[in-house]
Structure formats: C-alpha cells, structure tokens
C-alpha cells in the first residue's frame, strides 16, 4: 500500500494533454479559413492515429487511454444532448440514459445479427426507422390541418402510425432478408458481405438507425410528456429510464430478442477495435458542429427563450411546444449515436450499465462543466473519464482492492465544493474557439442608422 506519485503526475499530465488537444481542435475549427479548418481536422485525426502506432514496447496512446478516450467521446455525445435539453431548453430530464441504452442495444442488435448471418436486423430496423419517420412527417401535416387537436389525440394517432409502420417493416424485412442470407454466410464460413470492411458500413448504418430510433422514441414519449411542467417532466423521464432498463433485463422473455440475453447481458457484439476511435471522433465532431450551429441560429435562440421564460416566449410568437420537442428529440438523437459507438467499443452490453443511477453521470457532468456551456460539457466529460475512471481507479486500486470505492465519496465532495465556490460550473459561460458565439455583423455606419431613423420619422 504505497502512494504512486509518478503515476499521479503522469495522469495529470495526460488530462492536460487531452484538454490542450480539445482546445486546439476547437480553435482550429473556429478559424475563419476553410483550408485551416479541414487541415486542422485531418491533423487532429492523424495525431491520434500516430499516437496509436506502437514503437516496440512503447505506445503513446496505450489501450487503456484509448479506451478512456473513446468512452469520453460517447459520454460527451450523451452529455451534449442533455445540455441541449436541460442547459439550453430548461427541461430537466433524467431520461437521457434511457435513450443512450436504446441506441446501444439497437445498433448492437443490428451488427450482432449481421455477423451471425442474419440480415433481418439491419433491414427491419432500417425500414422501421424510415417508415416511422415518414409517418411522423405525414401525421404532423394531418395534425396541422385539424387545428386545436388535443395532445393526447395527436399522440394516439402517432402511436397507431408507429405500430402500423413497425408491422410493415417487420413483414417486408423478413420477406427481403433471404436474398442477403447467402451473401452473409454462417459464422464459421462468412459470405462476401460479411467481412471487416462491410462491417464498417453496417456499423455506420446501425449507428444512424440507432440515433434515429432513439429520436423517434423520444418524439413519441416527449409529445405528451413535455406538456408537463419541468419537475413533473423530470419524474416522467425518470420513469422512462426505468422502463427502458426493465425491458433490457427482460429482453429475452417479454421482448422477442433472445440474442440480447436479458439480465445476463448481451455478448458477442462485434468490437471494431481498429476503427472505433475514428467513428467515435467523427460522430463527436459532427455532433459538436450540429449543436453549435443550431444554438447560434434563430432556432437556438427560440430554444433558449423557452428556458428563460415560457410565457414570454409564447408572447413573442415562439411555438414553445414545438421547440421543447425539437430540443428533446435532437438531444436523444445524440444519445442514441453515443450508445451505438459505446456498444461497438465495449462489445458487451449489460442492463446494469444503463441503470438510471449511472444515468446521473451526464447530469453531473453538465452541471460540473456549466449548464448552457458546450465547452464546459466537452471538457468535463473528458476530464471526468480521465480523472475518475483513469487516475483515481488505478491510483486507489494500488492502495487496496476495495479502495476504488472511495471515488464515489471523493467526487460528490468535489462537486459539492464546486457548487459552493463556482455555482455556474467549472467553465460557466466560457466557450472555446469554434464554440464561441460568432461575432455579429459589424454595425452599419452611423449614417445608415440616422437614415433609418429619419425615414421612420416621416
């Protein structure tokens, strides 16, 4: 039982490097020149690829750190989504972890079936997501025709549409799948479409389907529930998380998914060892760009106005219900994609991972980083992984097998201290580079303003 000072110093150094890397990436992304942006992003990917190349015994980014990095990416996706829902839109949600779980299981099921010679996963899920999306679009048009339709009637329409669309997807998917069966082969003799390259494409599709599916579930769930006041909404989303976890535990008994193996956990998910870091960074980058562009647009301002004062937003002509739903759906989309990436990094899904208590982690992260700060969320997610999972787990692990449990005493105390010293979160309103509010266009010269005033006075 000795305290390893060297390890502590190296770990702190690692956290500093990671934060510097993120700072650099965001600064480059915020550069006005397109060439610098693209070059910077390519360089950012190249740096990681180089760091992953082993030099004999030594590897700059060892497997353990690479794992932390990928988990930090998925955690950032989930937390950014939650920050959109809670930090920017003001809707206190405990359901984010449920959408993360939905995304993880959906994507895992698709690739698992694919590698086991069953194309139905991809076909049925892909069709279902597309048809449900189409149905939502159509029903939304229909609802607009009948003005003043109660929310529960709308919900019933959407739900019936979802059931029909899902049923069609299952039937058609099962009809088409025999075409693919010979191409996939069996697990002992994989067919031409069942190799590492095809798997990347299937994973990409699976991740998008998982995100879309999480978004559609959040639409159906959010439509009636978002009309509740914020506290009641929080309780309802907590219920949602518990329902999702219960379904996971019983996925092989009450749901027709024996491959998920219920509470024993789903094993045999193809791990994309060589490429998953790339996907994780790519999706994270896309999510950061989408989130930032959305926040700094008129829609983003409308979403924020709902957080500030719902009644005033209504009086300004803002469709409050629509913007709540929009933030909720996009936040869930991020979580779903995060879940898909996580499943293909870890290769094993257990319902315990998606317990609602673990689901408080992204909430703590966004409060820690600063509600309504994208940079804060990103920095806190990476810091969280490297600090809690990396540094403390190993450091305390050296002091005894039970010692890592102290993490869960240390971090609430840290959070408590932070809330006392800096209630606005670690970074408050500070944003880095790309995530800064874009400079508003230059003030037209004084004369122009005078002209406007003069013409107005006529």
């Amino acid at each position, binding site marked *: 039982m000795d305290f390893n000072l060297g390890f502590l110093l190296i770990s702190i150094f690692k956290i500093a490097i990671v934060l510097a890397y993120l700072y650099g990436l965001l600064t480059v992304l915020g550069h006005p020149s397109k060439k610098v942006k693209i070059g910077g992003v390519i360089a950012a990917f190249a740096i990681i690829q180089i760091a992953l190349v082993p030099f004999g015994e030594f590897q700059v980014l060892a497997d353990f750190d690479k794992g932390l990095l990928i988990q930090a990416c998925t955690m950032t996706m989930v937390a950014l989504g939650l920050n959109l829902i809670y930090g920017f839109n003001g809707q206190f949600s405990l359901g984010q972890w449920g959408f993360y779980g939905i995304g993880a299981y959906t994507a895992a099921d698709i690739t698992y079936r694919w590698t086991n010679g069953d194309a139905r996963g991809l076909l049925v899920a892909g069709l279902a997501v597309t048809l449900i999306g189409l149905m939502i679009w159509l029903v939304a048009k229909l609802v607009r025709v009948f003005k003043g339709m109660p929310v529960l009637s709308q919900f019933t329409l959407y739900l019936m549409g979802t059931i029909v669309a899902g049923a069609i997807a299952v039937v058609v998917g099962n009809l088409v799948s025999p075409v693919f069966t010979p191409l996939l082969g069996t697990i002992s003799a994989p067919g031409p479409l069942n190799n590492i390259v095809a798997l990347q494409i299937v994973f990409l599709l699976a991740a998008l389907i998982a995100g879309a599916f999480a978004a559609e579930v959040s639409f159906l769930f959010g439509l009636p529930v978002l009309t509740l006041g914020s506290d009641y909404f929080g309780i309802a989303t907590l219920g949602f998380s518990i329902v999702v976890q219960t379904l996971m535990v019983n996925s092989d008994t009450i749901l027709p998914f024996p491959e998920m193996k219920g509470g024993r956990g789903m094993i045999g998910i193809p791990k994309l060892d060589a490429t998953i870091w790339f996907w994780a960074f790519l999706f994270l980058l896309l999510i950061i760009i989408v989130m930032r562009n959305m926040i700094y647009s008129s829609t983003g301002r409308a979403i924020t106005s709902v957080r500030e004062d719902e009644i005033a937003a209504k009086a*300004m002509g803002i469709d*409050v219900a629509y913007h709540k739903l929009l933030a909720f759906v996009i936040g869930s989309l991020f979580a779903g994609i995060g879940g898909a990436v996580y499943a293909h990094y870890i290769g094993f899904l257990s319902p315990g991972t998606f317990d609602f208590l673990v689901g408080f982690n992204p909430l703590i992260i966004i409060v820690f980083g600063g509600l309504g700060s994208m940079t804060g969320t990103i920095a806190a997610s990476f810091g969280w992984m490297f600090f809690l999972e990396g540094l403390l787990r190993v450091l305390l692990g050296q002091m005894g097998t039970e010692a890592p449990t102290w993490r869960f005493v240390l971090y609430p105390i840290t959070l408590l201290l932070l809330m006392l010293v800096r209630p606005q979160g670690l970074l408050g309103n500070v944003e880095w580079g790309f995530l800064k509010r874009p400079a508003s266009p230059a003030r037209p010269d004084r004369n122009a303003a005078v002209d*406007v005033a003069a013409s107005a006075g006529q």
Partner: protein
Amino acid sequence: MTLDTTPKDTAQAGVTASGDSQPTPVLATRRLTKTFGGLRAVNKFDLTVREGALDGLIGPNGAGKTTVFNMISGLYAPTAGEVDFLGAPIVGLEPFEITQLGIGRTFQNIRLFPNLTVLTNVLIAYHPHAGYSLFHGLIRNARFDAKEREMTERARDFLAIFGLERYQSELAKNLPYGEQRRVEIARALASAPKLLLLDEPAAGMNPYEIGRLMDYIHFIRDRFKLTILLIEHQMRLVMNICEQITVMDFGEVIARGTASDVQNDSKVIEAYLGRGAAARTGLRSH
C-alpha cells in the same frame, strides 16, 4: 417571408384596414367570461377598440383586468364569449399564433429573458419571421448569413430608435428597472404588432419616470401606427393619455367613457374609494 417590422409596413397595414366608411374595430370582445372554479373573474366583458385608439382599462386590484388581457392574448381559454381581432375570431388559437397575427403584449411583472442580452431579446421576437429554417442554420449557407445579418442590423437599429442601443450587449437582468420596462415594450414592438397590450407599464415608477413613459407611449403609437390598450393603476397616466377608458370592478364593466366621464361616475368613485366617498362627492357635485 421577410421581417415585417419596419414602421412603413405597419403604417401601410393601418391605412388599408381603415379604408371602409365603417372600419372594422381592431379588437372586439363579446360577452367574454372566465371562471376559476366558483370565482367569476370576468363576466360578460364587452369591449371595442377602434383603429389607432389609445384606450385604457382600469379598476381596483382583482377586478379582472389582467385576466381579460390573458384571454385576448390566448394564455387563458375563455369560459364563454368571443374575441375578434381585425374581424376574425381568435379564441382557441395558441398564444404564439395570436402574437404572429399581430397582438403584442407586455406583462405586469416584467418578463424579459433575463440571462440573454438585450439584443438577443429583440432577436427572439423576430424568430417567426427569421426567413431561414433550422436546416439553413445547420449548414450555414449564404441565405443564413444574409438573413442573420439583416436581422441583427434591424434589431440594432430598432434598439437605437428607443435609445437602448448602448445596452445591446448587456444581460437583460442587469438593466435598471425602468429600462427593463422600456426593453420589454421595445421587444413587444419587435414582434410587429398591430395591437399592443400594455399591462401596468408604469408599475413601480416615480412621477418623473411616469412622465417619460407617457411621452414614450405617445411616441410609439405615432411612430408605429399602433392601436394600444393599456391597464394602469396610475390615474395620472390614464387620465392624461387614454381616449376611451373602461372601468372594471369584480369582473364587470361598471363605466366607460372619456377621462372626465369616468372621473365623475359615482359607481367608479364607489369602487375605488368606497360607498361613503361616493355619497360625499355626489353631494358636492350636486
């Protein structure tokens, strides 16, 4: 769709609407009623506001004035009765739809977006006319850039008209109280209303500030060719600037007319000062 908040547009709308010999009133309520449980907050409230008017709605605390405003702006669904705006019924529409039709309002206790800048507060009022969709915002195309620049410049010019330009980068919550009121009125005007509902604009102001507010209200009415209906407790303000005054008590209209009509109405005096006072002033006036 473009930003139609220019004074010119508003003025034109006003001219076309008043073309008939018998112009449609901007606002007409008929037998508007609201009950909360057993409490009849507003009972059979009738009101007509003609084009370009500056009318007042007064009454003791709890008379139902704000409830009337909330029903007009769609925040409350009336128990019974109708509201017509420019001749079209608006009961049952969502509040944001009513705002987009052209009814702007302010609130008794200021409701700015406190943690956003004054400029953003105004920009939010432009959202329904932003001229680009979320998709344009995500891909940041030329349309987004142009519309966003146009909106920002317009919002700045708009703030300059009210002399609020120097506050544009301040958070709304950091402004002095009187300035917050002015920002709230400016923001309501940014949503391009034809009818502006002001709920106690002079609340918490000293006599000097009330004097400035009266000039301000006259200014915005003439400048934006507005129709204004205001609720107020400050008799000096109401009696000075309002053309037609409606007096409410216990949810009912008890008097209506010009400032001098209302001031001499015994029912009004009774409602404000009590029965004894009404009797005494009655003696004095006879």
